[in-house]
């Protein structure tokens, strides 16, 4: 499957792009997270990583569609 990942904050520095194409076999949010950690070891140094799908925080077992808006949410620090 081929997904497009929106990146923010430190994840943009790590993945090197505002929108990054990402191919993998898995379809679950949990699989996306492990694939990211495998391909970008620096991701493991983050305090946390959430995945947002279509503007909502997503649970680990959510199934991703190629058309979903998928975003990497490193620890937030607004305010």
């Amino acid at each position, binding site marked *: 499957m081929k997904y497009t990942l*929106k990146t*923010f*904050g*430190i994840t943009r*520095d790590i993945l090197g792009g505002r929108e990054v194409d990402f191919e993998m076999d898995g379809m679950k949010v949990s699989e996306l997270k492990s694939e990211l950690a495998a391909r970008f070891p620096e991701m493991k*140094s*983050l*305090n946390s990583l959430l995945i*947002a799908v279509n*503007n*909502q925080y997503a649970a680990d077992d959510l199934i991703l569609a190629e058309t979903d808006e998928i*975003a990497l*949410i*490193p*620890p*937030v*620090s*607004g*305010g």
Partner: protein
Amino acid sequence: MIKITEKAIDVQKVIETASSLSAGAVNVFVGTVRNKSHDKNVVWLEYEAYEAMAVAEIRKIIDEAAHKWDLLGWAVSHRIGTLKPGEVAVVVAVSSPHRKASFEACQFIIDNVKAKAPIWKKEVFEDGGEWVDARPISASMNN
């Protein structure tokens, strides 16, 4: 009103938006850029937001606050882009008939905005920049 903006925030306007003729109390939180962080001089801050989602998350927080307290008006404005020390990064204003509710609701909103809204800041020091809270302090201090 929920606003994510690159322009300087007009605090007075945010307060007026949240005010109501039937409210006796308006509480306002103004978050500003500090000139120091971890004892180092902050040259500037870079804020970025996942805008659509940030607005949606802040709306959920407001809905929750309006459910807990008797709110007559509210407004949240968050700045993004490059900010210098002293500049206003965020303003939360809520009005209610009585002052206790205005304090509690305003604090609830800013606490949750900081914890949940997809907004990030990078502190830029004289010797480089760093995304705030991204990594454990020990790791980030060694950068």
